[in-house]
């Protein structure tokens, strides 16, 4: 699938974009939404990111990273830039109280991700906080350490453990067991 998408995009075939959107669109939109915490901004970020992917596909090197990693970087950086730009704009305008609550309707959530999200909750919050800070807040480990008031070594270890636990959760075999257990309960 990944190779097919790359081939089509390299040939500037619109089918490649449609396929990419179908396969990665929800995840990238989720990443954009997670960072911007605003649906309209997330839409903008996704659209800009997809255009960047379309234009820069020739610079993608499959030996260096997976396609998703490359696209994640583009989306993440675009979202962070968008937030900075939006913050700069809001600083210049009248301050408006912004709710931190996500305005995310249930209908907009992809059903196939519901189980995944549900089980993400089973991951200890201390790991989630660190991973969100690093992956979605645009922080370095040092910045996360300072922001969260956690020693740098602890940040490193929580990230590693969190990712390891995450892998256990999302491992197909483990996921099946968890699903069965959920159904039984």
């Amino acid at each position, binding site marked *: 699938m990944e190779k097919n998408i790359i081939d089509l995009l390299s040939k500037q075939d619109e089918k490649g974009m449609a396929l990419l959107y179908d396969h990665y669109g929800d995840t990238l939109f*989720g990443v954009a939404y997670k960072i911007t915490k605003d649906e309209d901004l997330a*839409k903008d970020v996704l659209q800009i990111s997809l*255009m960047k992917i379309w234009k820069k596909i020739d610079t993608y090197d499959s030996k260096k990273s997976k396609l998703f990693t490359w696209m994640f970087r583009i989306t*993440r950086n675009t979202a962070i830039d968008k937030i900075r730009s939006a913050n700069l704009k809001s600083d210049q305008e009248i301050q408006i109280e912004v709710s931190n609550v996500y305005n995310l309707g249930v209908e907009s959530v992809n059903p196939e*991700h519901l189980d995944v999200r549900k089980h993400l909750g089973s991951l200890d919050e201390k790991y989630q906080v660190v991973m969100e800070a690093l992956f979605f807040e645009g922080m370095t480990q040092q910045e996360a350490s300072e922001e969260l008031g956690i020693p740098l070594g602890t940040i490193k270890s929580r*990230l590693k453990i969190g990712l390891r636990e*995450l892998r256990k959760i999302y491992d197909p075999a483990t996921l099946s067991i968890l699903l069965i257990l959920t159904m039984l309960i």
Partner: protein
Amino acid sequence: MKNEVKILLESDLLERYLLGDVSYQEEVQVEHFIDTSEEVKVAYNTLEENLEIYSKSFAVKAPETVLDNVLESIKTETHTVDSNKRSIPWYFIAACVTTLLFGATTVTLWKQNRLLSTTNNSVAGQIENLKEDIVSTNARLENMKSKYAVLSDPETQKYLINGNERAKNLRTVAYVNPKERLSAINVLSVPDLPEDKELKMWAEINGEMVCLGVIEKADKKLMALPFKDNASNYKITIDSKGNKDFASIDSEVASITLEKE
């Protein structure tokens, strides 16, 4: 090497590389370890997979309008690129090149034409000069012919003329051909004369003296003389300049009587 790998894995460099938050030097360093260390490569691949899984957990149904907008932008962009490409069609470029070549050729030909015109004018001038030379040479040739015709004709009579006491240095030879009506004189030497005097040649016709012209030292060249019918003799005088009306006996320095047929 193992120690370096351990340090790398314990640092956050691999995670930062995953997110693209590294400097160029760090990027080169991490890629070097990924290429050379299986342990680092596995760790990085695991990180990539975890990132994708982790990100998927936050997936939200992406609005179809975004895809529509993207595809629309792509079409517009492609159309713009095509339009830009079409805006300079091959025949336009060909026409431009042809025009430039035509212009360059025209300028070159114009310069060559101007050069040829100048050369042509120069050659025409030279031809004109040559024509004049030919006419002049022909005239001289005719003159020479007539002179030598006088000398070579058996009918020509030769007269040696020496000066009298007043012009001892005067020595001339006159040639007269009454049949062909030709006459010539070869001045061998002339006396030194005051500035207001000159040697003149006269012909006596029916008792009257007719001036034939002034004799000048001509470095032994043969000079044609106007032939006069019924001339009984020729005289040479030293006379004042400008006098062509009469020849006084006092001024006469040489005289020849023509033989009658």
